[in-house]
Each structure stands twice: as structure tokens, then as C-alpha cells.
């Protein structure tokens, strides 16, 4: 199971703060393509965090079981 967390306007688009994908492993690219086909997420500006660290969206990376992915819109603290 891969957990994906959504925030801000992306959570609004997905109508959920979090979902778990029934996958043992997939590449980051596959994951983003899957989410784009479901929610059209590429129309948003966002960064990707894997296990709470921001990584480049283009990074070649295998997301495995128990990894925590988050899509983060622009920060607006303060």
C-alpha cells in the first residue's frame, strides 16, 4: 500500500486529504501519471514529498510499499 496525501487546492480537486493505493511498488513517474489520469493534477502547481522530503518530480525513483507521498501546493505560511 502506498499512501498519497493531498493538501490545499489539490485536496479540493481530489476531494480527499489522503488515499492509499493498492500497489506494492511503482515508479514516481507512473504514480504521477496515474494521479493525473484520475484528477488532472498537472494543471496545478505542486511539489512532491516522499517520506516528508521534497524531491524533484522528474527523479527516477521507485515508490514502495509503506512509502508516504505528498503533493504540496505553494506554501502560504505566515
Amino acid at each position, binding site marked *: 500500500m502506498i499512501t498519497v496525501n493531498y493538501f*490545499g487546492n489539490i485536496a479540493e480537486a481530489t476531494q480527499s486529504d489522503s488515499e492509499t493505493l493498492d500497489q506494492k511498488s511503482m515508479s514516481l513517474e507512473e504514480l504521477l501519471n496515474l494521479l493525473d489520469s484520475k484528477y488532472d493534477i498537472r494543471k496545478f502547481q505542486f511539489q512532491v514529498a516522499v517520506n516528508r522530503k521534497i524531491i524533484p518530480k522528474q527523479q527516477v525513483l521507485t515508490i514502495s510499499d509503506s512509502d508516504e507521498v505528498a503533493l504540496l501546493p*505553494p*506554501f502560504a505560511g505566515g
Partner: protein
Amino acid sequence: MKKVFLEGAISPEFIADSIAKHQGKHSIGAHNIFLGQVRADEVGDNKVVAIEYTTYEEMANEKLHEIREAAFEKFNLTCLHIYHSLGKVGVGEICIFVFVSSPRRKQVYEATEWLVNQVKEHVPIFGKEILDNADHQWKVNS
């Protein structure tokens, strides 16, 4: 892990209480405090009436911990505190409170400025600006 996130606006009484707690530390000579207050910005024909804050709390706390450590490396500080609201904060209310204390004043201003900028740039906090016509838009830090 220091608690940063508070539900709702940060009250003047909470700030007074934080100041009072530092009066027993007799090596402190200078405090600097930054407060962010929600502005009634105009958005077309409408006005912001509140901002609703959310965060990715686990990641935010990790980042805030790193920022604290870096600040103590960078500046000569006795202590520092960062508080940020979650949930709804109305116009005129306070949503961020950064509090820096040092034996001498020299570095406190720069330390406060640096901390506020770090929080704005690196901590995953999201703000939904609620307008007076009940519409909303998503805040982006400039």
C-alpha cells in the same frame, strides 16, 4: 519537539504569557517579536475575511526542527519560539508569532527576519483565503 501549531488565532494574552515566561531568565537583554496579522486584502470586488490554514504536520515539524537548529547555529540566541495558527483566522487576528531572545540586541532583528522567511519558504502550510461573498482562493506567498 516544541509545539508550533495552535488551533485558531494567536491571542494577545498568549503573547503576553510567553513574554512573562522569559522574565525569569536574567541573562536576556533583548527580545524581538514578529507577528503576522491577517489583512482584509481586496480580491476583485471582494475582500478577504479570514484565512483557513492547514499543514502537513509531520513534515512541517521536521522542517521546523531543522530551522530551529540552524538558527541556534547562525545567531547568538538564548531561546526562540515559533507559533503558527491552524484553522480559521479572521482579519485583524494573528496567525504567526516568532519570538527571539538574546543577551544583546545586535542579532535579534536579523534572526527574526530569517526565521519568518524560513517558515514562509520551507514549511508546508497552506492558506485558503475566505472572501466576503463566501468564495475562496488559495494563498501563495510572495
